């Protein structure tokens, strides 16, 4: 298990390198630079700035310098928020994003799995059709449409929840962002669960359990849930990526000061180091999430063994 984990981590390095290179050169290809402003800087000042941040060196040199920094764990200084390093910015933004993202994943899993299982148990009933219709809607409506609708209903008309911002950081501020981020995931996980649960419930070993006189609830929890969860566990890797990309939009809509917002602001400002830092950070996060998924898979399925 430990050897496997180590191998996976080492195996992720080339992937991350490609990711870093792509991001590094693509953001440089974008027109403009970090020091373009409405009022042009004096040429000497700009040259000074460029020299300070090594932007006057040839690109490959800059790339090598950046990689060197990464190896030492240094994401470099932000070009825009001049008093902060990128690391500091990530550390302020990430806890907020993590709360929203993790919250969305947990909500999506809890609701998706239970609603999907319910639909599977009552296959072809009115419950089943309702669940499936609602989840189709959930998948079809993008979150940048869903979020304003939710704000309109729960913040503007009903006035139950704040329309945006983190406020004092209380749970009620997080509810709307978490829900809008989770909705498409709930829908997808519900459909996935329903399908796999129906298949598992038809398998001969479930018939065996019935013939042994086990009650329905125990059959469901002890015999059916674990195998039915396997496809959902596999989906959690891509789901992490979906939640991260979703959060970029959601944080913007709700005005939440998370990592996603830094990412968008950084890209608009050509804040090279900030964008790079967030990309690398997200990359590592997704690699790590996929590793966790595979380890969870091995834990659930006795036939899968990593050595």
């Amino acid at each position, binding site marked *: 298990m430990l050897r496997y984990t180590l191998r996976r981590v080492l195996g992720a390095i080339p992937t991350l390198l490609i990711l870093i290179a792509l991001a590094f050169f693509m953001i440089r290809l974008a027109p403009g630079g970090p020091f373009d402003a409405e009022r042009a800087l004096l040429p000497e000042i700009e040259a000074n700035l460029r020299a300070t941040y090594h932007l006057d060196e040839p690109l490959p040199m800059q790339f090598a310098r950046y990689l060197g920094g990464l190896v030492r764990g240094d994401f470099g200084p932000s070009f825009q928020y001049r008093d902060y390093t990128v690391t500091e910015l990530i550390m302020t933004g990430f806890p907020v994003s993590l709360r929203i993202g993790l919250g969305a994943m947990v909500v999506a899993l809890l609701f998706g799995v239970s609603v999907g299982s319910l639909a599977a148990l009552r296959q072809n009933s009115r419950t089943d059709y309702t669940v499936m219709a609602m989840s189709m809607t959930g998948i079809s409506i993008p979150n940048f449409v869903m979020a304003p609708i939710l704000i309109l209903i729960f913040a503007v008309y009903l006035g139950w929840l704040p329309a945006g911002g983190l406020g004092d950081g209380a749970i009620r501020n997080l509810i709307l962002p978490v829900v809008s981020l989770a909705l498409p995931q709930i829908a997808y996980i519900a459909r996935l669960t329903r399908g796999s649960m129906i298949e598992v419930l038809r398998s001969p070993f479930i018939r065996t359990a019935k013939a*042994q006189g086990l009650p329905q609830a125990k059959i469901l929890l002890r015999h059916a849930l674990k195998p039915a969860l396997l496809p959902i566990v596999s989906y959690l890797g891509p789901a992490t990526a979906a939640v991260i990309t979703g959060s970029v939009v959601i944080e913007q809509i709700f005005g939440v000061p998370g990592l996603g917002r830094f990412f968008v602001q950084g890209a608009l400002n050509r804040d090279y180091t900030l964008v790079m830092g967030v990309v690398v950070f997200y990359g590592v996060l997704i690699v790590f999430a996929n590793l966790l998924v595979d380890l969870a898979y091995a834990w659930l399925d006795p036939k899968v063994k990593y050595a």
Partner: protein
Amino acid sequence: MSLLDVRELNVRFDTPDGEVHAVRDLSFSLARGETLGIVGESGSGKSQTVMSLIGLLADNGRADGVAELDGENLLAMSDAALRRVRGRRISMIFQDPMTSLNPYLTVADQMTQVVREHEKLSRQAARARCLELLEAVRIPEASERLDAYPHELSGGMRQRVMIAASLLLNPEILIADEPTTALDVTVQAQILDLITDLKQRFETAIILITHDLGIVAGTCDRVLVMHGGELKEHGGVRDIFYSPQHAYTRGLIAAVPRLDEARSERLAAVGAAGPAETSARAAAAAASTLLDVDDLKVYFRVQHGGLWGERRDLKAVDGMSLVLKSGETLGVVGESGCGKSTLARAIVRLVPATAGRVCLLGQDLATLDRDAMRAARRDLQVIFQDPLASLNPRMTVGDIISEPLWTHYPKLEAREVRRRVVDVLSRVGIGGRELNRYPHEFSGGQCQRIGIARALVLEPKLIVCDEPVSALDVSIQAQIVNLLMDLQAELGLALIFIAHDLAVVRHISHRVMVMYLGTAVEIADRASLYDRPSHPYTRALISSVPIPDPDKEHSRSRELLSGDLPSPISPPSGCRFRTRCRFAQARCANESPALRPLGATLVACHFAEELAADAARQ
């Protein structure tokens, strides 16, 4: 008073095509400690009968009538009451031990929860009970197996676990639904022996559902014969076999190819007409050598121990040689995993050979380029095991059969293609009007006929049949075997007939090869192989096959094989069979026996002569 009394049982299913009446007015009884066999082909309603008794019909099914267990009507019970009957008073074992156990739970988990569901027992006590039962079903190192997952056990071991789980609460009735159908004959013999033994020890009444009359003859006291949801005949096992009253029973018994009988030209076909009468068998004697396989090896690289594990060779076929004349049938038998299907695939080059030669009419197939190989395939056709799965579901029958013609004779006129397709279909007994229908509209037997027509349309010289009748019912099996024999007689085809059913192989083959772990252990003409088997493995294999004759079955002595087939990744040293051989000696572990002549037989055993002499003395 009888333990179970079923009167006027009817089972119906609501389907989109209307109501299906699966069981009609069935009445029978079961006494304590008795074994009742229910025999019938697929669709006879035999499984639905028992499923209705314990309330496990599919959602669209309903049962009415009376089924009294000790005076209590099972069909009128509440769900909760019925649940207390299941597993405790009536327990069940199923056909496929691979899928009937939960692959995600350990043996102990699945067994203890049954005990604890019905009785108030501590975890320890439940575990102890499970261990006791695993030992009762003769599982070696039972205490270690308790924490194993099903996939870590062989098929036979899994079925033992199923049996142990079903006996945990000492039920009054054990229902066994085709308990050995998915197992090899050698393992089947072990399991049947075990069931008979346990029945006496636990005084359990058994309902044994099977399509195999041999199993009925050896294990049952009374028999119900079902067909199309109706009871055709009901009686003691000797009455059923020696004086069957109903025409269906007589047909069923006649349709079974028997191991103990000199071969008859044709098997009786039940209920359906076979193809037209045929001319005499083509003269095979004067024929020349068609196929020459020399020291064929097929290895697969496999990963041992998960991802990035050590890579080793799985020697599926390890140095096999055989010669086939035109018009001849060579039967190939062996347990599953012995490499017989790989041999078939390597002969037609569906898998590449690792070493050795396959020559068709003197031409080494491995040296042919793509075009030459395609041309050679005209003479070399295959029929597969699963009749439906081996036909493309999106193609009509006409398209399926004309495809090989278009491939090999692209310039053929459409009218000529159609003529040939209709012609070959009528040869296998399917009318020309069926050309535009799709495979799923046909029954299993008809699909296999279509598969045969597809192989025949190119007028090949050799057809490799990979378990062509294993998925079919007995009566359909008889029709297909007859068809193949007739076609051979008419067209002078050579057949390689692979099967695990020794009786069918005996019926159709001129010569028979017995395989064990990728090697041939015995090759002989049919009569000598079945009457005087030389290799200990052949002897065990033949003695494992149940004979559909109660008196013979009870009087014959058995040479049961112990254990399972060893892994082909690390086969035993020396003679591969030695780990399961009663006669094994030190020499067998060191020296691998070569295939050598003994009379007209080729046999690979160091002690073949001594064994033959022993057998002659008895």
